[in-house]
């Protein structure tokens, strides 16, 4: 009966989205509103563009910049965060600066990066990395600092050096908190990727959508919007899976608590 229960849950979860799409489809079928073309036409255009014709031209550059920027943010955020988290006194001085930098809306920093780097790819990667680093940095610092004293005491009594304690005990213990920072950083990285393309032209899904909107190619613009939405959703799903696998011990522990 378990399979039946599962199926039921899927059905209950699915009927609303299916219904909404159906409503959209039929309500827009004969539409003459220039801003809300029939969903069927949007779908046709979507397939023409993104399955898979324009993918290498726009999707690949976007994802490349996103991946590179995010990777830099992870390495810097976790690496520096670990060192800062372990050193109480240094962090006291760095904290106000970090707080301030983190309070600037990431998208608003894109004009700054354009001023420094121009409209090159480096501008995008730098802006993405900058925006995504702060939540990761903060989460790492917080995670490292809040390690349970019992864990570190045990390791210390067994004569692990403080470096070993940092990387072998505090770091893994901090992973749940670090992952929440990684998730926030992921979302910011995605937003800045798009923003850097809206503001910077060139290639990329955001750039494509911007140009389509400016040129009044409504169908194209809609496909761009939908593609961005789907990609954003997909990226988050992938992250969720990676998190569940990496933190299996944490979720296993919580379930029994």
């Amino acid at each position, binding site marked *: 009966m378990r399979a039946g229960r599962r199926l039921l849950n899927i059905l209950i979860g699915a009927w609303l989205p299916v219904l909404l799409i159906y409503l959209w489809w039929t309500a827009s079928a004969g539409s003459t509103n220039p801003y809300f073309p029939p969903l069927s036409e949007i779908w046709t255009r979507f397939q023409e563009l993104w399955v898979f014709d324009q993918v290498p031209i726009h999707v690949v550059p976007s994802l490349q910049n996103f991946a590179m920027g995010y990777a830099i943010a992870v390495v810097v955020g976790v690496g520096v965060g670990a060192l800062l988290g372990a050193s109480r006194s240094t962090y006291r001085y760095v904290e106000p600066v970090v707080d301030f930098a983190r309070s600037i809306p990431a998208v608003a920093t894109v004009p700054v990066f354009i001023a420094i780097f121009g409209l090159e790819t480096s501008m995008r990667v730098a802006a993405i990395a900058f925006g995504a680093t702060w939540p990761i940095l903060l989460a790492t610092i917080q995670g490292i600092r809040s390690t349970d004293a019992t*864990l570190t005491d045990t390791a210390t*009594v*067994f*004569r*692990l050096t403080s470096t070993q304690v940092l990387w072998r005990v505090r770091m*893994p*213990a901090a992973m749940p908190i670090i992952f929440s920072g990684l998730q926030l950083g992921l979302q910011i990285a995605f937003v800045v990727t798009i923003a850097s393309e809206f503001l910077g032209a060139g290639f990329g899904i955001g750039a494509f959508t911007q140009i389509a909107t400016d040129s009044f190619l409504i169908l194209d613009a809609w496909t761009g919007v939908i593609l961005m939405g789907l990609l954003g959703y997909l990226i988050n799903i992938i992250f969720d899976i990676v998190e569940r696998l990496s933190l299996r*011990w*944490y979720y296993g522990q919580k379930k029994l608590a």
Partner: protein
Amino acid sequence: MTAEISIRNVSMQYPDPDGGIKHVLSDISYDVTEHHFVSIVGPSGVGKTTLLRLLTGLARPTAGEIQVQGQRISGPPTGLAVVLQDYTRSLMPWLTIEKNIALPLKKQKLGKNETRERIESSLQEVGLTGTGKQYPWQMSGGMQQRASIARALAVRPDILVMDEPFASVDAQTRFDLEDLVLKVRADFGITTLMVTHDIDEAVYLSDEIVVLHGRPAVVRDVVVVDIPFPRSQIETRNDPKFADLRTHVYAMVRGLE
């Protein structure tokens, strides 16, 4: 017999968060004989755990010194292993039991085969053969504490320190674990210090019992438990000497003697 551990005129005080100074321990002196099992008992909050932190090198006394094997300690001494009360927070939850036991062994640079052999023999000693690949949270409380003991045994310590190791398990499991400790004592003869609030347990397991009392705490008495080994749950606890000792210690802890 040489004194394995020598506590000489140790006092401990620290600034009270509410202002003033808190005197926790005052002029504690005691020598732990090699191969002996010593329990430290006293009323709640008297400073047993503070003393333990001093013994494990996690803290330094404000006066006096502690010597291990003739050497004054200024940090966790070599050859010391620890078993703490809260096993959920002292076993690393992201590591399997095997990896948990292997962690302190890294310092000894043993090589793959000997590490493996130590892990297997430690697990066997505590009755956990074959569970190496499990995670701590997949085991019961009693099993986790056994794993914690296995981890301590694997480093082949000269001194074993335990902080209320059985306080968090149910009574039945506690008896099993106490007998395990007796078995380990018979097999290895490791000098052991155990903090406990369970007086029956202290009498059952120890060669000597150190009673702390007062504010600041002093050594109220050192009670020699002259019940011969091997001991058993049924016979030993039935022994009239057991009841006498128990009552005597209890009265001192309660300040009635």
